[in-house]
């Protein structure tokens, strides 16, 4: 009996040491700062996260190549686009003293992580969180003073989506479908308001719904000629496919959650033809072809959704560091009053509540022959 105890104790101790050796983190050097990216690096939304974090890494690579006094690394915070994980990941990011700024991807996960960032005074420059309440001082999910975003919010996307969806339609009757996520319900509210009398009816289909027959039955009954989907691409594609297969001939429009190269494939080439999308993002190839080429060389892949914005958000933080700011408080103060030239050559600065000052950018896209194409401003 004794031998067995000793043997198992030894085994446990040995494996513990082995684990420790394998997984211990190296101590971070004093003159290395970190910029964190909190977003979906794995999981169903991983494509968005990957596209964005590559933008971050490219910006860091170009910056570090100039051999600056302070090197900057990336801190990868994977929240899978999920709120529950967003809270824990955010706490971890805030607790790392080397992190001086963070890019957050999804609105819901941002809200979950806000308490940690606010308490730690870390500046957020988000490339893709569009929920309007984040910059609304009267809302419980107000992100001030730390939250900033480098894109237009859903208060702008809602009306744009309503316009784009009903463009060219005489007597539009619009049916809106949301997926019960934080982002989707926020966008839906703004869209409905913008539609006014054109709004006919709505339905909610939780994320992961496989069968949309009941929703489609409602659409048929109300004889809606425009359908707007405010969720994410996987369900949006499923929904569109079933919609078309059941003989729906009207317009299908969706917001930036659906903007994903997989969308036309999953929905079907025939079914996705003519689908209209809005998004407050501009493809990197259009904004800055030179950087897009560098991106392709570095990663062997095309820039994707929100790459441009992630790239620019990182450069905002790097500009602060280059100006000699090294603490969180200094960088937060600097970003609040920054004048920054983005990839497209436009000079940006932020309002007190974290939104961009000046007119916001909103683009519209259309699916043609199985690919999403930019179709001008929305």
């Amino acid at each position, binding site marked *: 009996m004794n031998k067995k105890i000793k043997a198992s104790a030894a085994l446990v101790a040995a494996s513990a040491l082995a684990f420790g050796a394998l997984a211990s983190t190296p101590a971070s050097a004093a003159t290395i700062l970190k910029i964190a990216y909190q977003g979906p690096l794995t*999981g*169903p939304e991983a494509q968005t996260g990957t596209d964005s974090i590559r933008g971050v890494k490219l910006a860091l690579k170009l910056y570090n190549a100039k051999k600056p006094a302070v090197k900057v690394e990336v801190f990868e915070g994977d929240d899978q686009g999920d709120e529950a994980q967003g809270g824990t990941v955010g706490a971890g990011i805030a607790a790392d003293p080397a992190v001086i700024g963070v890019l957050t991807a999804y609105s819901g996960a941002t809200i979950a992580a806000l308490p940690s960032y606010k308490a730690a005074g870390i500046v957020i420059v988000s490339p893709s969180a569009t929920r309007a309440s984040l910059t609304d001082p009267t809302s419980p999910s107000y992100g001030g003073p730390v939250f900033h975003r480098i894109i237009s919010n859903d208060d702008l996307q809602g009306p744009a989506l309503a316009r784009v969806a009903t463009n060219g339609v005489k007597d539009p009757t619009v049916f809106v479908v949301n997926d019960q996520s934080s982002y989707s319900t926020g966008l839906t509210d703004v869209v409905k308001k913008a539609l006014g009398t054109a709004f006919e009816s709505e*339905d909610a*289909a939780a994320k992961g719904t496989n069968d949309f*027959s009941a929703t489609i*039955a*409602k659409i048929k009954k109300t004889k809606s000629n425009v359908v707007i989907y405010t969720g994410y691409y996987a369900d949006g594609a499923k929904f569109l*496919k079933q919609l078309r297969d059941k003989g729906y001939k009207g317009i299908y429009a969706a917001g930036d959650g659906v903007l994903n190269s997989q969308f036309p494939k999953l929905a*079907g080439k025939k079914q996705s033809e003519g689908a209209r999308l809005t998004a407050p993002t501009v493809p990197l190839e259009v904004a800055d072809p030179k950087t897009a080429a560098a991106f392709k060389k570095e990663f062997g892949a095309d820039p994707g959704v929100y790459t441009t914005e992630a790239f620019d958000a990182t450069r905002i933080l790097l500009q602060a560091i280059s100006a000699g700011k090294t603490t969180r408080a200094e960088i937060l103060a600097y970003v609040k009053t920054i004048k920054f030239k983005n990839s497209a050559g436009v000079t940006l600065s932020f309002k007190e509540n974290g939104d961009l000052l000046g007119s916001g950018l909103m683009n519209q896209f259309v699916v043609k022959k199985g690919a999403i194409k930019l179709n001008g401003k929305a």
Partner: protein
Amino acid sequence: MDFSVLTDQFASLTFDGIALGFIYVLIALGYTMVYGVLRLINFANSEVFMLGSFATILVSTKIFNYTIESDSITGFKLVYTMLAMLLGSMIVSGLVSVLIEIVAYRRLRSRTSNRLTSLISAIGVSIVLAESVRIATSSAPMGAPRLLDKAILATVWGADIRIDTLLVIIFAIMLLITLDLFVNKSRLGKGIRAVSMDYDTSRLMGININKVISTTFLIGGLGTGAAAFFYITVYEMTRFSIGFELGLAAFTAAVLGGIGNIRGAFAGGIALGLIEMYSSAVFGTQWKSITAFVILVLVLLFKPNGIFGESLQQARV
């Protein structure tokens, strides 16, 4: 609560409900047959379905090299491709089902252990399978190539009869009749029914228990695999979580119809498909998954034998 959609689109909802119901029926078979023989809820049957759905897609993309952008095909080519997909799905599901029995349940049968242990083991299997696929696919959905063009054949009372849903219904009925005949007429089928009725006496009478049980799992798996094929034909998409999403509903269908017999699975599946469709129309799609759970609770409380069930004396204390 909006009844107008229900009345306006009644025929359409009914047809869709029946089609969905048949898929539930076939998955429910996996649950009901195993329960009949082993008095065990085969938790992992939902993942058998999930794996079958991936197998269906992989047959068409890896063996026949179609992609999600391929055009649809017709004629003989269509027939043999779809048959291959159906067989692929059924074989994979059947094998997985038998393997699950050997890995997770067989050891626990011989012990005098309580049912809790087997149930937990079953849950473990379910988790392992679902998570493995989740990691392998990075939680991304997998789309299926559209081989069968979804032409609308006719419109009856306002309901569009599409060729794929019609095929599902026809094939499902044929499969059920075959299964019913097998269980009632064949020798092995008699063995299954004997073990269902009395495990210990069957053993004493010389019935090869292992063979019977493995066959039961195999048949359940084959049926579930067929369900997966039909599901892919209609919905053309799957992902790792689909087992959980549909499995519980299918189990509810089995209980609703009377767990332990095939006709029960049939009745319960169709009934559940219709109820889900109607309640989604009236209350909103966001309440769809709750419908199955609420029905389950109600049935178990008030009529645990289900519609067709014999008194499975173990159901209530």
